């Protein structure tokens, strides 16, 4: 795409933003941020637990999710909500966004409810700035996807809700503007997870929005005990599936609904989770969508704006018995370092979760059983989850939050609980080891876990965790283990690629350790993550070299040497250096 010379100084022009830092004045903005200073929060006290829960009294996060549980057992009540780490004010410190329920046809809160944006005070505490920022939500909130869709350097918020969603544009001054109508991304219906990614390789972030079933107060069905009249939450098999949305970014603050022409809407969904990643290494971002009671989708991006749904034949659509499961949380990462991105899917109790190894050729094998993940998750119901290297040893581990969707399940199903603990699997290099029990008291604590976001809120290189619970307070976990190894944190800034550089591949060598990581879009459940990547080095103190293969449209590879360790750096596409 040819751009005029004026584009370089147009704040609305995302692609050229960092090519022209000088004229926009944003170089000073970035250079003044913590990204360059990257000072870690001093540790006042050390905890022996690998993951340590930070109480609300210490963090200042007093906000609580309210689900509005009603005797009618409306399904949205039990599945929300999501959370995010984002640096909304570009100060280099991760802030927090939490999604709440709100008014809709089946729910009128007795007290007003709102989402919450917490600014990171850089001292381990957070301040609620929601009202000033203007991001309270306006319906029954579900999830959040963070992405700088207009490339102005400030992350924007897409908040999924029932019965319509919101796009909040970040004004860059601590406030946001609801631009949903202008952008054309309202997505009427029940939206769940969403992801920003560049599906057409034009360097702009497009938006995929998962849609769950055709739902409204009038369409509520009865599931429960006919004699007593007590309702339970229905398994969604009795509700009709609906198509998901794909919105193409027009580059002028508006989007075009391309769900139909892209082939996305041909597949009727009951979608909870989505991750965007190049699963067949063809340079185009594919989508893996987890569905509940209908087969999962693997939308293979065939180029020219078209997707082909290949989930069943790829081996990720249904279980080994050919039946759909209750696909909820999802993520994608090359956990075994073979150069091909693998997938993970969390399901409901008695279904087991799936670790789908990428066998290349658009085919996957479920390795949940041989890795022990199947046995560990047989009775669990999983939502937010993410691959990440929590101990910075160079291998990608796996963290999951759980909780059954039916709050009466304890009474009715043996061995299954509504509140369930988190799970942590350590990647040993040969497989996964369940290390939950030895990783902190939080892994014994029953939670109604839903959203899970990763983010290094104290900038110490140990990636921390935020869990959003259903009808309860969020859980903020400090990772005490990662900083015991060496690491390098990266902020990638695309210039030809989308500014968030989703789809980038990082390869690095540190002595005998060669590793790569892919920057995927989305993953987890209803949640969004710290956009920075942390590369684990173990006890090695030096990085020999690092290569970045930038996403299309450039697709170029840059190699950097003489890199620091144990701090964050920023790498801008095309500059061949770090800051």
């Amino acid at each position, binding site marked *: 795409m040819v751009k005029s010379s004026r584009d370089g100084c147009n704040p609305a022009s995302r692609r050229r933003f960092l090519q022209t830092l000088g004229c926009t004045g944003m170089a000073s903005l970035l250079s003044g941020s913590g990204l360059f200073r990257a000072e870690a929060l001093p540790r006042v006290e050390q905890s022996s637990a690998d993951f340590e829960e930070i109480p609300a009294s210490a963090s200042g996060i007093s906000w609580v999710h309210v689900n509005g549980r009603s005797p009618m057992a409306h399904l949205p009540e039990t599945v929300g909500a999501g959370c995010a780490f984002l640096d909304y004010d570009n100060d280099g410190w991760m802030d927090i966004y939490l999604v709440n329920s709100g008014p809709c046809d089946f729910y009128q809160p007795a007290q007003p409810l709102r989402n919450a944006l917490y600014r990171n005070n850089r001292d381990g505490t957070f301040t609620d700035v929601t009202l000033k920022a203007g991001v309270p939500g306006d319906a029954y909130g579900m999830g959040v996807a963070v992405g700088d869709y207009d490339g102005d350097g400030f992350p924007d918020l897409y908040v999924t809700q029932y019965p319509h969603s919101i796009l909040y544009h970040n004004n860059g001054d601590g406030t946001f503007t609801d631009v949903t109508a202008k952008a054309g991304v309202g997505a009427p219906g029940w939206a769940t997870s969403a992801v920003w990614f560049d599906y057409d390789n034009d360097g702009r972030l497009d938006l995929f929005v998962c849609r769950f079933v055709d739902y409204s107060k009038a369409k509520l069905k009865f*599931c429960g005990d006919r004699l007593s009249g007590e309702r339970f939450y229905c*398994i969604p*098999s*009795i509700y009709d599936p609906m198509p998901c949305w794909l919105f193409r970014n027009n580059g002028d603050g508006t989007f075009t609904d391309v769900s139909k022409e892209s082939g996305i809407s041909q597949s009727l969904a009951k979608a909870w989770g989505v991750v965007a990643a190049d699963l067949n290494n063809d340079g185009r971002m594919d989508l893996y969508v987890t569905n509940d009671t209908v087969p999962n989708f693997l939308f293979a991006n065939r180029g020219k704006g078209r997707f082909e749904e290949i989930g069943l*034949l790829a081996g990720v659509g*249904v279980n*080994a018995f*050919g039946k759909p499961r209750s696909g909820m949380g999802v993520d994608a990462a090359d956990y075994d370092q073979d150069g091909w991105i693998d997938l993970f899917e969390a399901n409901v109790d008695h279904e087991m979760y799936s670790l789908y190894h990428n066998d290349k050729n658009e085919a996957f094998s479920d390795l949940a*059983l041989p890795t022990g993940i199947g046995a560990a998750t047989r009775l669990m119901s999983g939502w937010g989850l993410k691959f990440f290297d929590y101990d910075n040893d160079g291998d990608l581990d796996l963290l999951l939050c759980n909780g059954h969707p*039916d709050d009466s399940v304890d009474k009715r199903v043996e061995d299954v609980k509504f509140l369930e603990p988190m799970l942590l699997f350590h990647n040993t290099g040969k497989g996964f080891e369940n290390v939950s029990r030895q990783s902190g008291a939080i892994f014994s604590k029953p939670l109604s876990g839903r959203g899970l976001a990763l983010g290094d809120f104290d900038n110490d290189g140990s990636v921390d965790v935020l869990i959003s619970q259903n009808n309860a307070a969020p859980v903020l976990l400090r990772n005490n283990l990662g900083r015991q190894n060496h690491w390098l944190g990266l902020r990638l800034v695309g210039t030809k690629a989308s500014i968030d550089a989703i789809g980038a591949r990082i390869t690095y060598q540190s002595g005998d350790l060669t590793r790569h990581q892919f920057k995927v879009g989305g993953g987890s459940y209803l949640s969004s993550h710290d956009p920075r990547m942390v590369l684990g080095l173990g006890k090695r103190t030096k990085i020999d070299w690092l290569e970045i293969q930038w996403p299309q449209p450039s697709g170029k590879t840059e190699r950097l040497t003489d890199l620091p360790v144990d701090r964050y750096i920023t790498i801008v596409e095309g500059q061949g250096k770090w800051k």
Partner: protein
Amino acid sequence: MASAAAQASQKAPGPDASSSAHLGISLAVKGRCQEALPILKKAAPHLADKQLKYQAVMSTARCAMSLDQTETAVEVLLVLNREFPHDADVLYSTTHFYSELASRAAQELAATAPTSHQAEQLEAEAFESQENWDRAIAEYKKILEQEPRLAGIHYRIGRILLSKSPADAEGAKAEFNDEVKIAPDNASAEFMLGEVARQSGQWDEAIVHFSRASKLDEGFQEAYLALGMSLNSAGKFSDAITPLRNYVKMQPGDPAGHYQLATAYARTGQKPEAAREMALQRDAAAKSPRSAQTPK
């Protein structure tokens, strides 16, 4: 085949059969089964009136049970189920009568051979049906103390160990292995050994056991499916095709067979066959919808 005259006689019974039936039913209602039973047995086969015949045969069954005439009771139950299929009363009575028969046989077993392994096994099975796993295992172990090489007992214990929560897969595996030492032709034990291996992702071991199970019992449908699944999981896609073809012939309505066969075809480059099987999988899955509520 009955003669035409006999058929005519049965189709047009005389008034005597009807009167006798009424008399027999009346006597049975009053509990006078000794008198009622011979009358009912004689009259019932000649009754044309369906409702009267139903009442007469049901009364015959009740009296036969009360008089301990098991053979007569079983005969008339077979007649009832043949002539009045799907009738709720017949099914209820049948259940009741067979249950009573089972109970009597069990009492007789307990009275005549209380220390026999059959008596112990019956007790163990009763505990098993109540999901009283520990008591059931204890009873089965008593049998093994008496008859260490009795076939089927280690298999039963193994099944229970897998049913417990949490399941004891290693213990179960040991029991199934003991079973196949005693009864090398026990296809079920081989199958369970395969299943234990499959559940822990030990595909090669699973393949060996499922393969043996399907050879020991050529009609063992699940063994073919499990063998095909394990071969697919082990990446032996071309080997999986034959057992999976066998399975889908036996169980064309099971989406699992079609899904696994489609996978095997797809991974061996047979795309049209894969597409065909995947379409069959979709059809089969659509015909077996899940419950709308949390499964109990």
